[in-house]
């Protein structure tokens, strides 16, 4: 099993930390993982993206241009990465702020209204965990116990009290993901 994922959105949406939690959780489940961020001025308010690979084998290239799954959180990233999803792959996006929806017919497309949902429950901070939950619903690569370990490892101890709400957000994401277009 190898899952190659791109997560892309605005800096500040928790794109990099979502990838980090996913990678950490994979590592705790004894998988091979890599986390390759875009770095530099982009991180300061512009677009940010991270490539995460989770695999049972030694990972070859941490840098890719074709992905099994693209998780897209803003329009710029949609424009940039819609065509980077492998044929038959998955695109998950939050429609909030999206003006041009994905049009490909050779991939499976899902939406997760994480921005609306996190606003509704008043926890903007767990936005990215709702998105992560949506991904895990489709690709249950990581067992919940290892997700918890991943959260423990990647969050600083002073934030460990937020782990339960992060876990609830993941569960919420699993519930609210919707199919927008499915291949035959």
């Amino acid at each position, binding site marked *: 099993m190898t899952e190659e994922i791109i997560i892309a959105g605005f800096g500040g949406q928790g794109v990099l930390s979502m990838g980090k939690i996913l990678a950490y959780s994979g590592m705790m489940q004894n998988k091979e993982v890599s986390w390759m961020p875009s770095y530099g001025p982009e991180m300061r308010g512009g677009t940010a993206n991270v490539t995460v690979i989770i695999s049972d084998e030694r990972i070859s290239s941490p840098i*890719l241009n074709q992905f099994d799954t693209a998780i897209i959180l803003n329009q710029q990233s949609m424009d940039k990465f819609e065509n980077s999803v492998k044929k038959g792959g998955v695109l998950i996006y939050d429609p909030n702020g999206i003006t041009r929806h994905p049009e490909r017919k050779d991939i499976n497309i899902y939406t997760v209204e994480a921005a609306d949902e996190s606003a509704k429950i008043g926890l903007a901070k767990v936005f990215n965990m709702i998105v992560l939950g949506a991904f895990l619903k489709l690709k249950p690569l990581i067992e919940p116990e290892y997700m918890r370990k991943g959260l423990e490892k990647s969050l600083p101890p002073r934030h460990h009290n937020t782990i339960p709400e992060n876990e609830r957000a993941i569960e919420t994401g699993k519930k609210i993901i919707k199919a927008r277009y499915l291949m035959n």
Partner: protein
Amino acid sequence: MKDVRLMKGNEAIAEGAIRAGCDGYFGYPITPQSEVLEYLMANKTKERTGMIVLQAESEVASIHMVYGGAAAGKRVMTSSSSPGISLMQEGISFMAGTELPCLLLNVVRGGPGLGTIQPSQADYFQAVKGGGHGDYKMIVLAPASVQEMYDFAKLGFDLAFKHRIQVMVLSDGAIGQMMEKVELDDERPRWTDEEIVKMHTWAATGKTKNRERNIITSLDLNPVKQEIINRKLQAKFRKIEETEVRFETIQCEDAEYLFVAYGSSARVCQKAVQLGRAKGIKVGLLRPITLFPFPYKEVKRLAKQVKGIQCIEMSAGQMIEDVRLGVEGIVGVEHYGRLGGIIPAPDEVLNVLEQNFIKAKIYERTH
């Protein structure tokens, strides 16, 4: 239980240095390697192992602090990225001339000039062919993973003291910034001052009655003596060429085509090998781990086996010159590189290999 962590490459080499018994780090922030100094500072190394960490006023000062510490027999290091490494060439040359061991890290970014902060491999010539003045070589290690960033701290120090030479870890922004799983080993204690006096009889640690004074200098105004010093240096480099070559081969046993690439590019090529094999192309990868000494013999051995060699670099073609020296004209060698901080994609490099050697058939074997 093994200590396994998810770390950035820059953090891994910092942790590796602490655990390798490093005595001192002197450095100056520059993207994309500032995490090295940040990690060391956050880890309170003085309390943990006694390791000294100092943010210097410049890369020039950093390298000369390293020069001072190395002259006194300590395990010392610095790290920087391309423009900063250019500034350090003066001190590196002085350390070459005085045969002082040290560990240097270059997390390469695109150039020339201020260039870009994105990953690049355009400093190969500077590292491998001698970036400073004078006839000298450093051992150059090219990590291709975060684990190797960690491992090469200890390996680098050990090689540096074994041969009294500067060891440069030639990394790049991708390896420095990405996170992977790292298996950590136990902390190795720092040498005591007494051990240093006993082991490194050349070190300037204070003249005691029972020995001659130790002078650390690269100056000798007598050209006859200076030539002798240089010949001794060259003999050392030849010995290193014979004994310290390191490389990795991936699916080369039956390979008909070969990628040669190091560092990040090698990781990209590793994927390209998988993609190629899936298409039925018998392609392999030779990954030089030491760039000096370069694995010329292995290149030549594989050159006799394959129909074409595709070099992949994040540069306009620097390592390819060493590959061609190794190939000795036996088989066609082509370069493909992305510049200015762009990392090539796996399908992109496979496509290039196919175009150059399979579709175009410009390199039919004639012997």
